[in-house]
C-alpha cells in the first residue's frame, strides 16, 4: 500500500508541462532591462579588489540599479530601489563606486543603501529622517580606522532650511559624525581630497544669483576647519549653472561659466582663487552643452577635460591643475569635428586617459599630451546621437585598448570595444506600452491563390493549380541546392531547435512610450530586428496595434496612426492626429479575417464615425464608467447602456480573445453524458468596484442585447490591489484581494475565482434552444448555468491571459503575472475546475473525468512557473499566439522587462523529443540493410546446398 502511494506520488511528480533545464535559454528569452543609465551614476568598476575584470554599474532613470557584464551585456544583478524610498525621488538617484571598495552605494530620495558589488546583496540600508539625500561621495582617503575593501560614505542631506553632512560607516551604515549647516544655504554637493572633506553649498546673494560657499571639514571628526565664499553671484544664477564639482581628486575643482559662455571659471576647492579661462570657440555657432570629465581618484593626475558641444559639432579642451599654485592651464585641444561626440575619462594608476567617440571613429589620448594613443574606425557608424559614455582603457605596453559603454539617444546602450560594437542593449524597450504579433505576408500569396482555386470551376481550378505548380518549379534548383544542408541539419540537430517553419519564429511589434517601434524576433531569442522612431514624442499613448499581413498599424490616443512595414520597419503611411481624444479603438474584422476596419471611440464612449459597411454591434466603455452598446450604423444613440449600481465604478472590461477556438462544445462526464458549454462570442465581463463598501462586482453581459447574464459580488475587496480578469471559451476567471469581513468570510488574502458557464445544469440537455443551429441575442437568449469555485492563492495577480493554440484541442493554461515574485505562472485549467468535489473524495466517474478533491489553498506549483528562476520584472501585459503546432503556444510578456517563451500545456505531443535521435534511426536502418545484403547470398547458397544434399 505504501509502495502504491509512493508510486502514485512519483507519477504526480513526473515533469508534466514543466520547463526542462535544457530548454532554458532555448525556448525562452528574457531581456532584463534597466532603463536609461544616468550619466553621472554609470561607471566601470572592479567588483572587488581581488578581481581582474570589471563590471559596468549603473543607476537608471527608472531607479533600477544594476551591474552589467561588459563582455556580453548580460545582467549580473539588479535591484529596484524605487520602492525603497519613502519620499519620492527628485530626478535621478545617485550611485557611487570606488576601486578598492567591495560595495557600491546608492541613494534615492531619503534612502541610502550599500550593495555588494559582486552579487548585489544589500550591505546596509539607511533612511534619512530629515530630508532627501542631495549628494553622495565615497571617501577614498585612507585613515587608521579604514579596513581594506570598505570605504565610508559622505552624504549631504537637504532638509528644511539646513544642510547636513554625514559620514556613514562603510560596514554598518551608522553615522560616524554629522555636520549641520543651519545658515539656510542651499545644500549642493560634497567633495573630498586626500586630506579634507568639502561641503559645498549655495548662498543666496543680495540681489540675485548664488555665491558658492565651501566649508572645509575634518574627515575624522566632522569639525569645520575653515570656510570660503566665492563671489560668483554674477555667473551662477541657479544650482544648474555650476557645471561640475570634482571629488576624490588630489585637487578637486568647481567649474562654471559666465552667463555668455565666453569663459570658464575654475576654482580649486579649498582655495579662494578663481581661474578664468576664455573659451576658444572657433566653430562659429553657439555652445549648446558643456560637460566636464575628470578622474575620480586621489592618486590620478589633476587633469580634466571640458567638452563643448554645438549644434553641428564638438570639440574638447584638456586642462592641467598645478597642485602647488592651484593654477589651471590649458594643455591641448581635441579638434572640432562635425557630428556628435562623446568623451569619457578613465584612469590607469596615475595616468588619465580620455576616450572620444565620434560618429566615425574612437580615439584615445593621454591627458598629459595630445598624441593619439589609439584610433579605431567604427565598424557601423550610427546616425543615432550618442548622449554619454563611460570608458575603460587598458594599456598594453605602448598601445592601448579601450571599451566604451555608449548610451545613444534612441535608447540603445552599446559597448564599443576598439571600434567594434560588442553588444547592444535596447533599454528603450523598458517603456513598452503596447505590442502585437506581426503577420508576415509570406503565406499570403499562397492563401490568395488557393482562394482563387476555390472559386473557379473544377476544370479551371485544375488548370490553375497545374500552372501554379509549373511556376513553382523555378524554385526547384534552390530547393535541391538546400536539400543536403537541410537533411544534414535535420539529422544533426534535434527537432525542438528546428521549429521555425512551424510558426514559432514570429516577430512581435512593440511600441514604446518614447515613440519608437521595435520588431522582436521570437525565433532569435527576442533579438531586435529593427527599431524606428515612429513619432517624436516622449508620451506616446498607444491605444492599439493592429497587424495585417506585411504591415502593422499603431493607433495613438490623439487619432493619429502610423503604419510600418513589419519586415523592414519602414514607415509606410501616416494619418495625422484628429482633434478628438480617443479612449479606445474598435476593430471590425471581416469574417475571413482578411480586412480590418477601425473606428475610434471617444472618451465618453461614442464612436467617432458611424460604420455603414459593417452590420455588427459595438461595445465601448466610457471614461465615467459606463458600458455602451452601439449598432454599428448609428453612432448617435446607443442601443443599450450598462450603468453599475450607484457607488460602483467600472474599472475593467474584458471579452473573449479574437482567436478562441473551441474544440468540443460539451464536457464529457464520467458516465459519458455531456454537459453542454455555454458558448457565446459576444460575452463581456465587466468589473466594477465600490470603494465605500469595499465590494467588487463582476457582471457578465451579452454584447448585443446588453443583458446581464450573470452577476456576482465579492465583499471585503481591497480595490487598491490589482483585480485581474480574463475570459475564454465558456469560462472566466478573476482574482482580487479579499479581506475577512466579520462572519462573512474566513478567507483573508488573494483569491482566484473561476466560473464555468453551461447551457443547462443537467447532462445531455441543451437548454431552451435545444438543437437550434443559430440564435439571436435579441430574441431568446437563455441564461447560462454558472458553476464557480474560489481558490486562495499565495500572491496577487496583476494580469491574466490564456494560452491560445491553433485549434483549441490542447488544454489551456491561465497565464498569471505575479508582480511580487516577478514571474509568470501558467496554471493548468484542469486544476482550476470548479466541479472538483468539495469535502469528499471523487467518485470513480469523477476520477475518470480527471477531477480530484478540492483544496481551498492553491499553491503555485514550481512546475507551473513559465519564467522558472528568471526575475521577470514589471510585466504589464502578456500576449499569447497560436503556432502551426497544436501543442505549442507562444507567450510574450512586456511592460518593463521583455520575456518570451513557448508554452506547451499538454506537453509537446506533436514534436519529437530531444531523446529521439534521427542519426541513430538512420544508422540502424543502414546497419540492418547492410546486414541483409551480406546475409542474403549466404542464406541462399545454404538453401541451395541443402536441396542438393537431400
Amino acid at each position: 500500500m505504501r509502495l502504491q502511494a509512493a508510486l502514485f506520488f512519483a507519477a504526480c511528480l513526473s515533469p508534466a508541462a514543466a520547463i526542462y533545464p535544457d530548454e532554458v535559454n532555448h525556448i525562452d528569452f528574457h531581456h532584463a532591462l534597466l532603463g536609461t543609465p544616468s550619466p553621472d551614476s554609470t561607471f566601470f568598476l572592479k567588483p572587488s579588489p581581488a578581481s581582474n575584470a570589471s563590471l559596468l554599474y549603473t543607476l537608471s532613470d527608472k531607479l533600477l540599479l544594476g551591474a552589467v557584464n561588459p563582455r556580453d551585456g548580460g545582467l549580473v544583478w539588479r535591484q529596484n530601489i524605487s520602492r525603497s524610498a519613502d519620499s519620492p525621488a527628485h530626478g535621478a538617484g545617485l550611485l557611487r563606486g570606488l576601486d578598492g571598495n567591495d560595495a557600491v552605494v546608492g541613494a534615492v530620495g531619503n534612502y541610502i543603501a550599500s550593495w555588494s558589488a559582486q552579487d548585489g546583496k544589500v550591505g546596509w540600508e539607511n533612511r534619512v529622517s530629515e530630508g532627501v539625500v542631495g549628494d553622495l561621495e565615497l571617501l577614498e582617503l585612507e585613515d587608521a580606522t579604514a579596513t581594506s575593501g570598505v570605504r565610508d560614505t559622505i552624504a549631504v542631506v537637504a532638509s528644511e532650511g539646513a544642510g547636513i553632512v554625514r559620514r556613514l560607516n562603510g560596514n554598518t551604515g551608522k553615522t560616524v559624525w554629522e555636520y549641520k549647516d543651519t545658515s539656510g544655504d542651499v545644500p549642493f554637493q560634497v567633495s573630498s581630497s586626500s586630506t579634507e572633506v568639502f561641503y559645498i553649498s549655495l548662498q543666496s546673494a543680495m540681489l540675485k544669483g548664488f555665491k558658492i560657499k565651501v566649508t572645509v571639514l575634518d574627515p575624522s571628526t566632522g569639525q569645520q576647519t575653515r570656510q570660503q565664499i566665492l563671489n560668483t553671484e554674477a555667473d551662477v544664477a541657479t544650482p544648474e549653472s555650476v557645471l561640475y564639482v570634482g571629488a576624490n581628486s588630489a585637487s578637486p575643482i568647481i567649474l562654471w561659466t559666465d552667463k555668455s559662455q565666453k569663459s570658464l571659471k575654475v576654482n580649486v576647492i579649498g582655495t579662494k582663487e578663481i581661474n578664468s579661462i576664455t573659451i576658444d570657440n572657433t566653430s562659429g555657432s553657439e555652445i549648446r552643452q558643456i560637460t566636464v570629465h575628470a578622474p575620480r581618484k586621489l592618486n590620478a593626475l589633476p587633469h580634466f577635460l571640458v567638452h563643448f558641444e554645438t549644434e553641428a559639432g564638438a570639440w574638447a579642451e584638456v586642462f592641467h591643475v598645478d597642485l602647488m599654485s592651484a593654477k589651471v592651464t590649458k594643455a591641448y585641444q581635441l579638434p572640432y569635428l562635425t557630428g556628435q561626440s562623446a568623451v569619457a575619462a578613465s584612469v590607469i594608476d596615475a595616468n588619465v586617459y580620455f576616450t572620444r567617440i565620434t560618429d566615425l571613429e574612437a580615439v584615445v589620448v593621454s591627458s598629459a599630451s595630445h598624441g593619439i594613443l589609439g584610433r579605431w574606425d567604427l565598424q557601423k557608424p550610427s546616425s543615432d546621437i550618442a548622449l554619454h559614455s563611460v570608458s575603460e582603457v587598458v594599456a598594453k605596453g605602448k598601445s592601448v585598448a579601450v571599451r566604451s559603454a555608449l548610451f545613444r539617444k534612441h535608447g540603445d546602450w552599446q559597448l564599443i570595444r576598439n571600434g567594434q560594437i560588442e553588444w547592444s542593449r535596447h533599454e528603450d524597450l523598458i517603456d513598452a506600452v503596447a505590442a502585437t504579433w506581426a503577420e508576415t505576408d509570406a503565406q499570403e500569396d499562397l492563401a490568395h491563390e488557393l482562394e482563387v482555386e476555390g472559386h473557379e470551376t473544377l476544370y479551371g481550378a485544375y488548370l490553375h493549380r497545374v500552372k501554379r505548380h509549373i511556376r513553382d518549379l523555378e524554385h526547384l534548383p534552390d530547393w535541391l541546392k538546400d536539400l543536403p544542408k537541410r537533411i544534414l541539419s535535420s539529422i544533426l540537430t534535434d527537432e525542438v531547435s528546428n521549429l521555425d517553419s512551424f510558426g514559432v519564429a514570429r516577430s512581435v511589434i512593440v511600441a514604446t512610450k518614447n515613440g519608437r517601434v521595435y520588431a522582436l524576433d521570437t525565433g532569435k531569442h527576442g533579438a531586435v530586428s529593427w527599431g524606428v522612431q515612429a513619432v517624436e514624442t516622449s508620451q506616446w499613448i498607444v491605444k492599439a496595434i493592429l497587424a495585417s499581413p506585411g504591415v502593422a498599424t499603431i493607433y495613438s490616443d490623439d487619432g493619429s496612426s502610423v503604419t510600418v512595414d513589419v519586415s523592414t520597419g519602414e514607415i509606410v503611411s501616416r494619418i495625422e492626429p484628429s482633434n478628438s481624444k480617443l479612449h479606445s479603438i474598435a476593430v471590425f474584422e471581416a469574417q475571413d479575417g482578411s480586412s480590418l476596419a477601425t473606428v475610434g471611440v471617444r472618451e465618453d464612449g461614442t464612436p467617432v464615425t458611424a460604420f455603414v459597411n459593417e452590420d455588427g454591434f459595438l461595445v465601448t466603455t466610457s471614461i465615467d464608467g459606463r458600458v455602451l452598446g452601439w449598432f454599428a450604423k448609428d453612432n448617435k444613440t446607443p442601443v443599450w447602456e450598462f450603468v453599475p449600481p450607484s457607488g460602483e465604478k467600472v474599472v475593467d472590461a474584458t471579452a473573449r480573445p479574437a482567436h478562441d477556438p473551441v474544440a468540443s462544445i460539451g464536457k464529457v462526464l464520467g458516465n459519458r453524458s455531456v454537459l453542454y458549454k455555454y458558448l457565446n462570442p459576444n460575452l463581456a465581463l465587466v468589473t466594477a468596484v465600490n470603494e465605500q463598501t469595499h465590494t467588487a462586482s463582476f457582471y457578465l453581459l451579452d454584447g448585443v442585447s446588453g443583458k446581464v447574464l450573470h452577476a456576482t459580488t465579492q465583499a471585503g475587496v481591497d480595490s487598491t490591489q490589482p483585480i485581474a480578469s480574463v475570459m475564454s471559451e465558456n469560462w472566466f476567471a478573476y482574482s482580487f484581494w479579499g479581506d475577512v469581513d466579520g462572519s462573512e468570510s474566513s478567507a483573508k488574502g488573494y483569491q482566484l475565482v473561476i466560473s464555468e458557464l453551461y447551457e443547462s445544469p443537467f447532462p445531455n440537455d441543451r437548454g431552451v434552444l435545444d438543437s437550434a443551429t443559430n440564435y439571436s441575442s435579441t430574441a431568446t437568449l437563455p441564461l447560462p448555468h454558472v458553476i464557480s469555485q474560489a481558490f486562495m492563492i499565495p500572491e496577487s495577480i496583476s494580469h491574466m491571459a490564456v494560452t491560445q493554440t491553433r485549434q483549441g484541442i490542447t488544454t489551456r493554461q491561465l497565464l498569471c503575472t505575479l508582480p511580487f515574485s516577478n514571474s509568470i505562472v501558467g496554471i493548468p485549467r484542469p486544476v482550476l475546475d470548479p466541479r472538483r468535489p468539495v469535502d469528499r473524495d471523487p467518485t470513480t466517474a469523477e476520477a475518470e473525468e480527471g477531477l480530484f478533491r478540492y483544496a481551498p489553498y492553491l499553491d503555485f506549483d514550481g512546475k507551473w512557473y513559465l519564467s522558472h528562476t528568471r526575475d521577470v520584472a514589471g510585466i504589464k501585459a502578456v500576449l499569447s499566439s497560436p503556432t502551426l503546432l497544436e501543442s505549442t503556444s507562444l507567450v510574450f510578456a512586456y511592460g518593463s522587462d521583455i520575456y518570451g517563451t513557448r508554452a506547451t500545456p499538454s506537453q509537446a505531443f506533436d514534436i519529437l523529443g530531444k531523446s529521439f535521435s534521427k542519426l541513430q534511426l538512420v544508422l540502424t536502418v543502414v546497419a540492418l540493410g547492410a546486414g541483409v545484403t551480406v546475409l542474403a547470398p549466404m542464406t541462399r547458397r545454404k538453401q541451395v546446398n541443402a536441396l542438393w544434399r537431400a
Partner: protein
Amino acid sequence: MSQARLPPPPPPQWVVSLNSPMPRPSKAASSIPDPPGFSSSRGGKQRQQQQQQATTKRPEDTDALKMKKAWEIAIAPSKQIPMNAIMMYMSGNSLQIFSIMMVLMLFKGPIQGLIGTNAAFAKYDTPSTHSRLLGVKVVYMLMQLALLCLGIWKVNAMGLLPTTRSDWLAWESERQPLERAHFAFR
C-alpha cells in the same frame, strides 16, 4: 497355329483375396483386443459401418443418423457460451490488447459460422433431409447469434458502442449567433 489357346492362368492369390470380401472374423478373433498402440480401431469400425451401410442400404436409418449428427453440430456453439462468458467476464473492461483480441475472436467465430451455415450442413443435406434440416439450421443460427450477443455485451461493457450522447458530440455543432458584437475596451 496348331497351338491351342491356353486358358488364362488362374489369378494370383493376392488378386483373389483382393477381390473377395474379407472373411468375417470369427467370434474368437473379434474378441481379441487390438495390440497396444494400434490407432485405427475407430477408423476400422467406421469402415465396418460404412460397409454395413453399404451392404444394408436402409435410407431411413441413414437419414436419422444424418439428422442426429446435424443436431449435434447445431447445438455445438451453445457449449462455448459458458466458457466464453467466463473468459469475457474475467478479462475486464479495460482496452488492452488481450481483451481486444479475445473480443475479436469472439466476433470472428459466430460471424464465420453464420456465413458458413449451409457449408456446415452440406454433407447432411440430401433431398430427403432437406426440409427437416431447415429447423436444425435455424437452431444453429440462433446459437451463433447468442454467441454474438455475448460479444456485443462485452463490447458494450468496454464502452465501445456509440450509445451515449458523448459519442455523438463531435457531430454536434456550436450554435451560431446571428449578431456579432465587437469590443473596444482598451
